[in-house]
């Protein structure tokens, strides 16, 4: 399954990059996140509760950041398992500076899901993941704006 999109932040690229790489911020941004632990500079573990249609459940997972070109781009490898299935994915984000101190983020990724999430939830997974991403990026943008204010 492909996840793809773009988002315009109301702030400079350096500031966005800093927020993206801050686990505390990520925890606030991703809806349902219970814990985030930084294992190393490029590896995070955590727990997230997700509701997809009739199912909700906690996923325990790991995110690895690689191919980092600050403040421009990086690759994220995500792995999560829980009672309602599993998720594996690789994605990349790329940011370019726009005029007026704005930043355009383009993200693209391939996710593989399994278990109940796939067999019963797949029809909803697409919209759930899109809305989670949007909600997350909106929150990130709010934090960005309040930091700048």
């Amino acid at each position: 399954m492909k996840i793809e999109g773009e988002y315009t932040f109301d702030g400079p690229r350096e500031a966005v990059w800093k927020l993206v790489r801050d686990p505390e911020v990520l925890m606030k941004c991703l809806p349902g996140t219970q814990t985030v632990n930084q294992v190393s500079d490029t590896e995070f573990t955590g727990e997230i509760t997700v509701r997809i249609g009739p199912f909700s459940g906690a996923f325990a997972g790991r995110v690895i950041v690689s191919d980092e070109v600050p403040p421009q781009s990086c690759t994220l490898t995500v792995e999560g398992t829980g009672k309602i299935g599993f998720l594996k994915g690789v994605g990349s984000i790329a940011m370019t500076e726009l005029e007026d101190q704005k930043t355009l983020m383009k993200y693209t990724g391939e996710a593989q899901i399994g278990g109940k999430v796939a067999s019963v939830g797949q029809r909803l997974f697409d919209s759930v993941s899109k809305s989670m991403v949007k909600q997350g990026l909106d929150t990130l943008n709010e934090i960005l704006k309040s930091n700048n204010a």
Partner: protein
Amino acid sequence: MEKKLIGKRIPRNEDPRLLTGQAQFVDDVNLPGMLHAAFLRSEYAHARLVSLDVSKARQHPGVVAVYTAEDMGKDWFPGPPLVSPPPTVEDVVFHSRRQVPLVKDKIRHAGEAVAVVIAENRYIAEDAAELIEVEYESLPVIMNIEKALEADSPLVHDDLDSNLAAQLSQKKGDYEAALKEADVVIRRRIVIERGAAAAMENRGVIAQWDAKGEALTVWDTTQAPIPIRNGLAARLGLSESQVRVIAPYIGGGFGPKIMMFYPEEMLIPWLAMKLNRPIKWIEDRRENFYATTQERGQVHDVEIALTRDGKVLGLKDNFLHDTGAYDPYGLTIPINTQCHVMGGYDIKNFTSEFKVVFTNKIIVTPVRGAGRPQGIFIIERMMDFAAKELGIDPVEIRKRNLIQPNAFPYEHGIIDQAFAPLILDSGNYPAVLQKTLDAIGYEKFIKEEQPRLRKEGKYVGIGVVPFIETTGIGPYEGARVTVEASGKVNVATGIGTQGQGHFTSFAQIVAEQIGVKVTDVRIVTGDTSEFHWGTGTFASRGAVVAGSAIHAASSMVRKKIFTLASKILETPEEELELEDGAVRVADMPQRFISLGELALLANPLRGAVEPGTEPGLESTAYYGPRYGPTAFGAHAMILELDPDTMMVKVRRYVVTEDCGTVLNPLILEGQVHGGVSMGLGNSYYEQLHYDENGQLLNASFADYLLVGATEMPNIEVHHVETLSPLNELGVKGAGEAGAIPVPAVFAQAVENALSDREFEINEMPLSPNRLFELVKS
């Protein structure tokens, strides 16, 4: 003898019980002290089982036991091969790989059982199953049957050199010579995808071990209780007489409930003995999608050689058949496809090779039609393409090639699914086709209605397809018919029943011979303690094989009745009449004896039973055909299509079925209706969608679209009766018939409706979106 009951539209004996909720299904069985099972199933389609920690689940309150493959010790071994390997046909390849009770090392399809939890109730069992910690090492997933055969493909079974499960070639005549003579050769690639059987009742197994009586009773939603009994006895080290398998009322079989030896069927009885407690497992719908077998996936490369006037000279069909992770059912499905790909046509030159391929999908075993719909879809599509290319009417090209009534028995010279010669025993194919054409008004539709409706902007199309159905294969079935002292008749046979109306059609066969009311015949099916020889209900064989055994036993009882009555009434047998539950002297109706009294006299408490005779008015008989009869039929539909949305409405649906003697038209029509609904599902609604990682993406009825009442057309059923010479009743099977030709008719009708567009249907099932893509591309 003129038939009084056979062929009559008699309401079903079983319906009052079924309609008032009094029929016992497996889940209705509740035993004191019964425990409940839940399975932990793999979420991965292909993975190595790295570690399995069940300790938390074992500690969960209410949990009695948790078992893994390791815990089974020496009792862990794969299920038995269900269908004997093919005979030594030249160059045949067959690698038998069977499903296991619980995965030990490697998962081969999503949904394979990894552990089983036994608890005080199902809720606890399911909760505890979630506490099991499993570590999987995921492996590359094999999904595409063509890629699966490439040299660098990962393997489903590591001990094999490739994913090739089996390979078989069959030939007739000289195809290469036919090709040289042909005016036209048409080649296509045709792809057919999987659907589910989706029986209303999911599977279920309940087992009870009586330690003091040393007897095991198993209630199982199986179509074949006797093979399950035999297999369980062998597996558990018991005598067959210590195991009783009961297949009570079953809410639909459709193939996947045949003697599969599903992991649950092996495990639940074993656990009941181990724990000495009754255990129940009822499959839920999601499990049914993941753990119950499926069918239909094939890729065909087909070539047809014809003369300019549309006479088929030869057919070549090489295809791949997806068997999923294991191949317990041998070669039944692809051989059926091979045997149906010539349809009802007189094709002299034929060559076909199939390769059966292992993939990381759910296991494939027969689903209503069992390879036949694919074969019919292929030949009928090719007939349509040929008709178009040669400018011949699609019905006309079929008429030119149908096997003629004087050609029977028609020997194809290839083997069928039972490895018996493929011989079409009897039929009047042109008459069946003509009756269908007349009923749907083919000429009038093409010449008048379609042009008129087209002018009104309506896209309407017609499809007409004839088909064969091989039915009623061996090895054999048996039955015991007993006239009891009440004057009523008890009949026991070994097959199971899943809604086919056996309690009525079999009763009609008996009542016809024994002169009782149909409602006075009690039929017992699917209980190994009542009758313990036989095979099961599959391959459209119940009426043919068990019905013939019942007929034979009834005839023998009839003889006994006459012999004894003749003695008692002191009248020669030829002057006696058997009717209304009594034997009468033909010209002295006041001189009679009832069957009940006769049954008492046949089983006396004093006196002596004469040497060489048997007590009671009872007989047991068996019937085993050398080969099965082949039914024939034709379906026609008129559909209307909205070219913007590609939504389809079937306006008319006509079926002519020739299954030999019709035992009960009401029941036959019901079978046909059910089959057509499955066939429509296979055409436009039902498809199992897997992603590239082996995840089934529509494992619920919210996403897997069954045909509903609103999609179902009214179905007109007509009959032609060409009696089979192979059995005394003259019957041929009809259980799968309804489903077989529907996708072929549907494709033809859709192309006909959109004849102003350039597109071709080379795949099934379709859907509105897929058809939209095909037409627009």
